[in-house]
């Protein structure tokens, strides 16, 4: 576990919708230069946790700490001005603008003109720059959203289900985009179910289940966790993921 202090801490979050308690003391952190993945079944509360952390939902209890300061009423706009970015489940794009207009808006506000051209090339967006989000595929929207992050270069990125609705051909591009941000020092938190893709990019896994969270460590450690294997990974178990995980053992050494 890194000795770096987390840039974002969501601690002891609780949230009920009507009588259903979705979250009961759930927590996660985001650390600079690391990718943290929240994994769990549908309805486990992964999206809810991200939305609470950026102020899109008010929790029943719990606290959010950003850059070492307690944030009593999180606000995405205020936290964005302090270096945070949030990409919601469908995308970060608005139907109002073409993809080009989106990228240019970010480049203008965040002085990212140089990074714009690089992002378009790395994320293979040249062909769809003049289209609006309604005319983009799922993969193009996610690549477009990642391009905004590449231009913005946030200190902390929360991205909900980056691989959802993305064709197999686009997944390596998304993965590279996330890793590039991590290499630039961004603290990245992602969610999802695509175990192969998520394990391949993650530095640490947090399992969201029964309203709470369990820190499982590195993907290799997560794949060996008995309860996680039984209740989430299923029959495939640990073997497949360890082999695909570039031969890394749970202790970080090589197989």
């Amino acid at each position, binding site marked *: 576990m890194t000795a770096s202090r987390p840039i974002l801490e969501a601690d002891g979050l609780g949230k009920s919708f009507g009588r259903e308690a979705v979250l009961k003391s759930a927590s996660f952190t985001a650390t600079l230069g690391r990718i943290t993945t929240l994994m769990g079944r549908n309805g486990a509360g992964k999206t809810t946790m991200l939305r609470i952390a950026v102020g899109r939902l008010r929790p029943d209890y719990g606290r959010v700490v950003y850059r070492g300061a307690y944030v009593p009423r999180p606000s995405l*706009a205020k936290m*964005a001005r302090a270096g945070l970015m949030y990409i919601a489940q469908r995308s*970060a794009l608005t139907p109002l*603008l073409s993809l080009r207009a989106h990228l240019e808006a970010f480049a203008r506000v965040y002085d990212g003109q140089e990074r714009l051209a690089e992002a378009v090339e790395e994320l293979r967006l040249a062909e769809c720059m003049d289209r609006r989000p309604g005319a983009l595929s799922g993969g193009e929207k996610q690549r477009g959203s990642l391009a*905004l992050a590449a231009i913005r270069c946030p200190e902390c990125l929360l991205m909900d289900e980056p691989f959802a609705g993305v064709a197999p051909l686009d997944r390596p591009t998304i993965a590279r985009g996330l890793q590039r941000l991590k290499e630039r020092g961004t603290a990245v938190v992602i969610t999802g179910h695509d175990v192969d893709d998520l394990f391949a990019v993650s530095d640490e896994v947090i399992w969201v289940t029964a309203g709470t969270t369990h820190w499982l460590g590195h993907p290799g450690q997560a794949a060996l966790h008995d309860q996680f294997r039984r209740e989430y990974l299923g029959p495939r178990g640990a073997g497949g993921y360890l082999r695909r995980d570039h031969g890394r053992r749970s202790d970080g050494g090589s197989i």
Partner: protein
Amino acid sequence: MTGLLRLLRLPSVRNALLLRGFLVWVGIRVAALRVRIADPNFLQSAWILGAVALIVFLDARRREEDVFLANLGVPGGAIAIAGLPIPLLLETVL
């Protein structure tokens, strides 16, 4: 204030919100006519402008445009205000 200034630097979004504010105002004024409020007094005008601001904000939230704008540091209040210039002018002039 910073958020509003950032919004002003985005002409497409700014113009879209201006237009929406105007269209919402027209709708509210038509509805007011149906309840025989043809010439609103000061308080009624204030309520109309408040409703315009709220509807413009809620509409942006419904479309999830507010997430894009929030990532640019533009808060919901700035979105609501961006819909007001034309209705404010019209309420003043009429």
